[in-house]
């Protein structure tokens, strides 16, 4: 499955904004890290803002803050702002389709359903855990916890 660039940027922006609680970043800050233009990212942030996922902070040092709950906002919530993720079944009643078309649609719908379920089950908080695991940070944090002297 391929995601559009806007979807990927929106997910990366959500991860950046939720890396610390209350974090505030400008589109330039985020754009610099991912090598994208502020203009493109500003459009993405505008869409996320309309969906209530981020809020703009005005004034000097302004930027964006995450406005959702990272433990409840999923990749699907973000992806469906930029992608057409509804299954073929929802788009047509199938009345004018051949039996071969219908059989193929059934298979493709199964794939779409699984993709939606996967995106809908990974929250931004879970993504942070996956990132930590892939960079080894999760193991480092566990090791640090093990080294801590226990409280009586």
């Amino acid at each position, binding site marked *: 499955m391929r995601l559009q660039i806007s979807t990927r940027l929106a997910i990366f922006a959500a991860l950046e904004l939720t890396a610390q609680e209350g974090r505030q970043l400008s589109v330039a800050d985020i754009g610099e890290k991912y090598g994208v233009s502020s203009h493109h990212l500003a459009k993405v942030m505008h869409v996320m803002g309309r969906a209530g996922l981020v809020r703009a902070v005005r004034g000097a040092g302004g930027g964006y803050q995450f406005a959702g709950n990272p433990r409840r906002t*999923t990749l699907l919530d973000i992806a469906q702002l930029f992608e057409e993720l509804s299954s073929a079944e929802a788009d047509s009643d199938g009345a004018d389709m051949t039996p071969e078309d219908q059989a193929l649609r059934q298979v493709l719908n199964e794939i779409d359903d699984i993709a939606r*379920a996967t995106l809908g*089950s990974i*929250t931004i908080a*879970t993504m942070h855990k996956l990132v930590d695991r892939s960079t080894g940070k999760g193991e480092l944090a566990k090791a640090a916890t093990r080294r801590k002297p226990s409280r009586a």
Partner: protein
Amino acid sequence: MATAAKARATKHESGVRVRRVRAADVAAVIALDAHVTKLSKPDYWNDIFRRYGRQRLHERFFLVAEDVAMRAEPRLLGFIIGEIRAWEFGSTPCGWVFALSVEPEVRLQSVATALFAAMSAEFKRAGITKMRTMVARDARLPMMFFRSEGMMAGPYIQLEKDLD
């Protein structure tokens, strides 16, 4: 085996204690399940308690979480049930979780995390290194929870057929 079957209570940092189920917990389990699923199934839960709370305890784990702040009358906050299954679908022995429920008003307070950690520990002590579960695709909350605990899609696909 006797050691593994002993009641082993663990106190989680969230103030939740996880321990083996007791007969006195079954009414609360039935009530919690009825509250969450809107369907009371006392016969089912009594049978589950008989099989998973009393038999083959070295490979069957029916754990409950309770609020340790209420010492006089601890409240049941949730439960998890799992067992070690060997050679099903050609799989080497692994730990299956087939029930998990948490009181809705205490969700997002790490109760399920404490239950999941206790179940993982039981499986590990039994020498198991793989844990599995099955979740309905549209069951968003449990799906998000298991994902947050590091569970990913496994190598099996569940298939079914309508029998006309």
